[in-house]
């Protein structure tokens, strides 16, 4: 059996582990555009003040040796013939028996009217290196986009002594989470830490002016040395756009991570998985999903049977002093019940979204301890009607759950109770 | 303001205290209180009952509980206990309650009896090398077996009366679910089943969780008739009619309503939260012939398959009473001496009523022999049996087996603070508080009981082996192997033993 994995990110690693848990012998070939070992995307920030890739390596060199993986690095896929099961690189072609597409995502870079200079982005090692090298003589930085990457990058840059302006088109940072309160708290935190935060603004145009860049917003003009775009990512589907592969925003897969083509799987940021909760395909580019998707695909590719859990967004994030963990749907619909607890002084905020007696989303700011218990309640679709007040008002506590539920949880994760 | 001097002083060694607050969490009497704002553990000595839960749990041994040296002026007639009792009664207007057994310094005859051992003429037997038999059968014995021999084959024609087989002559005495926790009951039940002996339900009925131990259960029928029904009678291996209890002869039982939880109310078949009151007498037994009828009734209800025990407190004319009980058809007579324990009793009764088990046992055994009816019943001695030596002495005086209650509780953690009646037992034994009952893990409780009884059994084997005896029946009533020390002629005579040196 010959497995080919395109990409070398988290889901590729997951897939290797998944395949090797079933099949120790089959040949695994890994093709990646990037000429380095797998690294941790969420930790990319660390590359702003260092070029030591080891600091953020996700799996070391030995991992590939141990799992007997042949790497073809620094080469990109040109095209593919799914009928003949052949991949075409620049110079060579590779046959596959089972294929995993784990090409990940790439940065969204907006077209700035009138601007021909470089717009930096920050979604992979090359971009990070490029940004680092360029930062030396640049002091005023404008960051476009108040999402996760934008907010976090602002923090890093301001800590490096840069003058940072964060331009957000919505009313607050991380507005995609769907919770204004969180955005408010974070807006405040960001402002307090010396970042110039411009909310509900649109960039109209930009132009080079001397060594500087002048950005025109809808109501003012600001000067800067560099623009970094953090307007999110989009699935890297370019080599497959004209194939018979079913693609929406990303490559559509079922709950076995299978695409519409036999023996072709996709996982990670490039894939979109059907979500029964929302009744649509969802592309949720976060690390646990990438690993799990890859692992699941790996097992299915090597003859096993694995079904991916219902996926939903979740994140652990720290902006300056605010630690937060969010999970599931925080943007309630009409009949959903929302419970919140706020202690502005202690910077503690808790939010639970309940739909038909089940927890579907939760946010914890400040005290995030034991968040996994809530996460499991969402994942396992547990009834919280009788315990929701406890969950909200007290520290999250495993013993809030009824005994039989606790025992079921223990059994399902760790085996029979003697 | 209470004018009663605290009994104990609690000392905390600050050099050792790591402020882990185990003491605060463990003391149900609320001797310790933690004040977060001051980061301070306050100690209230007056609440301490001297149960030693705190100092035994303290991971750095930072606590010591000592007797309060500050006491009322010494007076051998008006001792501190007496003064405190008076003050307490002056403050409350009630009877003084107490728990466990009589602790007053009356003579212990066990401590005045010495055992014999073999030398030269009769080899002592080494229990490690030779079989040493402790198995005992309790129940009425036939006077004579009818055996037929036909064509060289032997047929036993007599049908034996129902017998209780015990692998060691030690059983656990009656403690009701209610007076003790379910975990404690389960510890006793499971230990009894592992040991091949019996525990006793007391008057608490049989919790559904414990039916599986029925083979090793003696079910009690007492004056309150709590939890008595056909299934109960038939689930148990034997039935004990409780007439009296050594700690409180002539006194009934009283389980306060707050201890009557839902589980207990279901087990006892009574409304939850109401006081469970056992009358002083059985109101259908005002005389020996009434007892005979109840024995007959129980036998009828259990298809004559189960032995019936009758338990009485050791009182002045026990011998005549025992003879009556034997003739009323009981299979086993249980005599409970005045050192026997209780969950709650007025201390004036506990400390002043009844007679020592040693004396009662000796006269009852002799009386039944004098009437040639000793084989009609087995005798179980109870009430303050503290050690294997006490058990051996009891058997040599004439008992078939002994019951242990207090010793069993001590094995499970009891420190004899005597506050059982408060229902706040820090060791999780005599309480129904769900925070406290969990303190006894039946796996540990039952193992401790098994260990205790096994070690006593080993000691009994060693003792009888040293006497050159290798079966317990050869010890039973073998008073020749006992000698008294410091006994008057009257005492020797009553005990039926010679003085040491004779």
């Amino acid at each position, binding site marked *: 059996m010959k497995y080919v994995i395109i990409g070398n990110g988290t889901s590729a690693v997951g897939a290797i582990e998944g395949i090797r848990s079933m099949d120790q012998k089959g040949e695994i070939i890994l093709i990646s555009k990037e000429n380095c070992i797998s690294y941790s995307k969420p930790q990319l920030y660390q590359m702003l003040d260092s070029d030591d890739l080891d600091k953020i390596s996700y799996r070391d060199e030995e991992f590939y040796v141990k799992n007997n993986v042949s790497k073809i690095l620094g080469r990109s896929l040109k095209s593919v013939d799914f009928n003949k099961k052949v991949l075409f690189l620049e110079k060579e072609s590779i046959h596959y028996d089972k294929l995993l597409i784990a090409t990940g995502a790439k940065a969204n870079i907006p077209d700035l009217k009138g601007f021909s200079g470089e717009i930096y982005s920050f979604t992979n090692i090359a971009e990070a290196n490029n940004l680092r090298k360029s930062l030396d003589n640049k002091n005023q930085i404008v960051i476009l986009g108040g999402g996760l990457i934008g907010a976090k990058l602002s923090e890093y840059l301001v800590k490096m002594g840069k003058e940072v302006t964060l331009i957000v088109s919505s009313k607050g940072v991380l507005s995609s989470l769907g919770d204004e309160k969180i955005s408010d708290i974070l807006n405040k935190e960001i402002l307090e830490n010396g970042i110039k935060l411009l909310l509900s603004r649109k960039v109209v145009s930009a132009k080079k002016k001397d060594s500087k860049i002048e950005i025109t917003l809808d109501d003012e003009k600001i000067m800067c040395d560099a623009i970094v775009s953090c307007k999110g990512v989009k699935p890297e589907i370019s080599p497959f756009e004209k194939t018979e592969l079913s693609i929406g925003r990303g490559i559509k897969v079922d709950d076995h991570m299978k695409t519409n083509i036999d023996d072709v799987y996709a996982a990670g940021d490039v894939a979109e998985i059907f979500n029964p909760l929302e009744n649509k395909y969802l592309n949720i580019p976060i690390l646990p999903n990438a690993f799990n998707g890859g692992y699941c695909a790996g097992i299915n590719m090597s003859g096993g049977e694995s079904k991916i859990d219902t996926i939903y967004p979740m994140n652990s994030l720290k902006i300056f002093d605010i630690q937060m963990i969010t999970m599931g749907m925080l943007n309630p619909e009409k009949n959903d019940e929302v419970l919140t607890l706020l202690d502005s002084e202690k910077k503690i905020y808790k939010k639970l979204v309940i739909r038909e007696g089940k927890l579907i989303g939760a946010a914890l700011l400040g005290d995030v301890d034991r968040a996994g218990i809530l996460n499991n309640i969402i994942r396992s679709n547990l009834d919280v009607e009788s315990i929701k007040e406890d969950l909200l008002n007290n520290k999250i506590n495993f013993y809030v759950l009824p005994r039989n539920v606790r025992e079921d949880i*223990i059994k399902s994760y760790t085996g029979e109770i003697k | 303001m209470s004018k009663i001097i605290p009994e104990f002083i609690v000392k905390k060694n600050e050099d050792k205290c790591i402020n882990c607050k185990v003491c605060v969490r463990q003391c149900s009497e609320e001797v310790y209180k933690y004040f977060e704002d001051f980061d301070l553990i306050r100690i209230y000595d007056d609440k301490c009952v001297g149960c030693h839960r705190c100092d035994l749990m303290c991971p750095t041994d930072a606590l010591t509980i000592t007797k309060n040296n500050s006491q009322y002026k010494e007076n051998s007639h008006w001792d501190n206990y007496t003064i405190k009792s008076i003050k307490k009664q002056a403050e409350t207007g009630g009877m003084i309650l107490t728990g466990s057994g009589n602790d007053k310094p009356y003579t212990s005859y066990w401590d005045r009896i010495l055992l014999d051992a073999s030398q030269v003429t009769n080899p002592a037997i080494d229990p490690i090398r030779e079989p040493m038999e402790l198995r005992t059968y309790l129940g009425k014995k036939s006077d004579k077996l009818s055996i037929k021999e036909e064509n060289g084959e032997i047929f036993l024609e007599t049908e034996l009366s129902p017998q209780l087989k015990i692998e060691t002559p030690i059983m656990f005495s009656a403690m009701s679910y209610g007076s003790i926790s379910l975990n404690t009951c389960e510890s006793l039940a499971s230990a009894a089943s592992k040991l091949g002996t019996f525990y006793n339900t007391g008057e608490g009925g049989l919790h559904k969780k414990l039916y599986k131990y029925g083979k090793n259960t003696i079910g009690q029928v007492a004056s309150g008739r709590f939890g008595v029904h056909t299934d109960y009678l038939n689930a148990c291996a034997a039935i004990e009619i409780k007439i009296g209890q050594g700690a409180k002869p002539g006194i009934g039982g009283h389980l306060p309503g707050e201890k009557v939880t839902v589980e207990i109310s279901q087990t006892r078949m009574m409304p939850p939260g109401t006081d469970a009151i056992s009358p002083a007498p059985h109101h259908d037994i005002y005389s020996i012939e009434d007892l005979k009828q109840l024995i007959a009734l129980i036998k009828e209800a259990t298809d004559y398959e189960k032995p019936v025990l009758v338990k009485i407190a050791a009182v002045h004319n026990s011998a005549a009473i025992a003879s009556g009980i034997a003739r009323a058809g009981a299979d086993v007579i249980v005599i409970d001496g005045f050192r026997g324990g209780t969950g709650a009793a007025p201390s004036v009764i506990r400390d002043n009523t009844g007679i020592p088990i040693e004396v009662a046992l000796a006269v009852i055994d002799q009386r039944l022999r004098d009437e040639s009816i000793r084989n009609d019943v087995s005798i179980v001695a109870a009430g303050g049996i503290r050690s294997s030596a006490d058990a051996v002495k009891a058997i040599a005086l004439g008992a078939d087996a002994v019951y242990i209650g207090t010793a069993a509780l001590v094995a499970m953690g009891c420190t004899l603070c005597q506050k059982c009646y408060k229902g706040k037992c820090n060791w999780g034994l005599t309480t129904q508080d769900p925070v406290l009952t969990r303190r006894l*893990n039946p796996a540990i409780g039952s193992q401790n009981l098994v260990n205790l009884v096994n070690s006593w059994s080993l000691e009994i084997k060693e003792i009888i082996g040293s006497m050159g005896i290798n079966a317990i029946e050869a010890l039973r009533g073998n008073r020749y192997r006992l000698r008294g020390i410091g006994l008057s002629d009257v005492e020797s005579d009553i005990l039926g033993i010679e003085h040491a040196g004779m």
Partner: protein
Amino acid sequence: MKRRVMCNEDFCIGCRLCEVHCNVKHSKSGDIILAYKYEEEREPSRMAFEEKDYVCGSIVCMNCKDPLCVKACSMGAIEIKEGTVAIDDERCVGCWMCVMVCPFGAIKRGDKKAFKCDHCHDMETPVCVLNCPNKALVYEVD
């Protein structure tokens, strides 16, 4: 091999001595009084002791069959070593993804790094189990 410390909540008496002994075990001196009274820095206990009404119990890492923390770790710093889920201190960056997914709440947040029960890997039985006065904690090794 799989190790698991289970708490039988029926018999957890809420003394929290498991925490105390866990602290001592993971202190510099290993001595209870030195650890508590003289050592300057002390890691918080690796036990998660919880109470709810009459129920209490102590939870440590259950060593899941298929640990979610291993999959969620953004640094690949968690792996199963000799039956125990182990966090590589060198590599942990404190992103708390593991805290986010652990269904038992058994991973704790330290100053900068996550930490959890190590099942006292240098001992036959973890100290919490050894010192549980009511044997509510049970150590299972498969």
